């Protein structure tokens, strides 16, 4: 029974094309194809198909891997914390405030700055010349209209986070998954909101009680809820965001403090009935833990 079978069926042909056969069987199929033009055409067709498929996606592997997918950062954070996303690396040293964190966000795109300044200067110069010409030719006239800049306001993330906070924090059922099921919460948020880490804010007196998925401004967002010993609740809201700078200084309801920062494509907002110092310390702790 060790002699090679004569019969060749379609699965053998596939195995042949995909390099699944040993030398002996390969020879057997080659012989078969030599005598069966129809099967040979079939095999040839699959090979063309394979080539077309590979060609269609060949470009992808040549592209540089986006920063968000650099595995070293993903996994090293993951291994020290259990689950992770790569955060921007900044060092929140003593004096460094969240202002510095925001700056670090913008300073990552330095090359565009001079270009913007140059074009603004050009526009300005043009406007001055045009204005002078207008004045010279028509006497007193309306001042040249300022160059129109299309300013697209980023969506009101802070307002949105505040709404999420107001909706859930004081609710009798503030969280969907409690802190007793951290792994589940982490993988849920990681999968849906893209960020699955659960910063530990115990050092500023805030205990994680759990979290939930909430509708964000443009995509699903995560909301983690923390509680102080006195029973006050604060929330950490996060949502995917572009590289744009945070909107104007966060405005919140009286009694609520909010801190916003951006890192690695996410907007984070910490909000709660906290003093400005506590809010800042909590936000720095949340940001710093992950950048370690």
């Amino acid at each position, binding site marked *: 029974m060790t002699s090679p079978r004569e019969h060749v069926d*379609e*699965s053998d042909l*596939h*195995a042949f094309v*995909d390099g*699944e056969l040993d030398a002996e069987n390969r020879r057997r199929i080659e012989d078969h194809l030599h005598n069966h033009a129809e099967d040979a055409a*079939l095999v040839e*067709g*699959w090979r063309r*198909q*394979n080539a*077309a*498929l*590979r*060609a*269609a*996606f060949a470009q*992808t*592997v*040549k*592209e540089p*891997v*986006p920063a*968000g*997918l*650099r*595995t*070293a950062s*993903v*996994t*090293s954070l*993951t*291994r020290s914390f*259990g*689950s*992770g*996303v790569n955060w921007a690396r900044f060092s929140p040293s003593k004096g460094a405030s969240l202002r510095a964190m925001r700056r670090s966000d913008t300073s990552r795109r330095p090359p565009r700055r001079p270009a913007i300044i140059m074009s603004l200067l050009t526009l300005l110069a043009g406007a001055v010349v045009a204005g002078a010409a207008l004045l010279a030719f028509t006497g007193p006239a309306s001042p040249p209209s300022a160059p129109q800049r299309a300013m697209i306001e980023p969506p009101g993330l802070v307002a949105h986070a505040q709404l999420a906070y107001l909706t859930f924090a004081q609710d009798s059922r503030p969280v969907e998954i409690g802190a007793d099921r951290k792994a589940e919460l982490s*993988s849920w948020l*990681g*999968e849906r909101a*893209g960020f*699955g880490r659960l910063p530990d804010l115990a050092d500023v007196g805030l205990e994680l009680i759990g979290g939930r998925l909430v509708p964000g401004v443009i995509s699903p967002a995560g909301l983690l809820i923390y509680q102080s010993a006195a029973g006050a609740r604060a929330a950490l809201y996060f949502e995917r965001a572009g590289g744009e700078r945070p909107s104007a200084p966060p405005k919140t309801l009286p009694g609520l403090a909010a801190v916003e920062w951006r890192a690695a494509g996410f907007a984070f907002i910490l909000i709660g009935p906290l003093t400005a110092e506590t809010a800042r310390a909590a936000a720095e702790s949340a940001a710093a833990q992950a950048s370690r």
Partner: protein
Amino acid sequence: MGQAEDFDETLERLTPGLRRYARALLSGAANDLADELVHTALQTTANEAGRESTGAVLDLRVDLYASLTHAAQRRLRSAAPHRPSLRQPAIMHRLADLPFEERETLLLVVLEGFTYEEVARITRTDRPVALMRLMRARSALTALDRHPSPGADAGRRPGPHLRVVK
């Protein structure tokens, strides 16, 4: 000798191929979502590798692709099907027409070069089923190859990438 290579380095080396597979799985129609899936897969695999501690990392590449395949399946179950744009090559449109199981199998074999055995592990099935899916996928693509006339195409699925505006 996978052990000689650092865990991070291994993942790093596998990431470009993983991105290619993710894109192809979505028929080149949603590259952002594809990268999101890659991110999920990297994270999940790293988590699992951490939990099972060293040694249990039998075949990281299989685990990684399995993780991505399942994430994609979960996502695609709820989302509307992605259609490649008209600029994309014809093969992507045909790919998009395949059922998910056939598409994943074909891509794992052809694009990523997995053996049938590995494909069966990744797609949580056995070798005969994987082979059957592969055969179905190829014959579906070949059928389209043989009758590339617009009439045959339209007869199969009326106006899939063109919306008639009256």
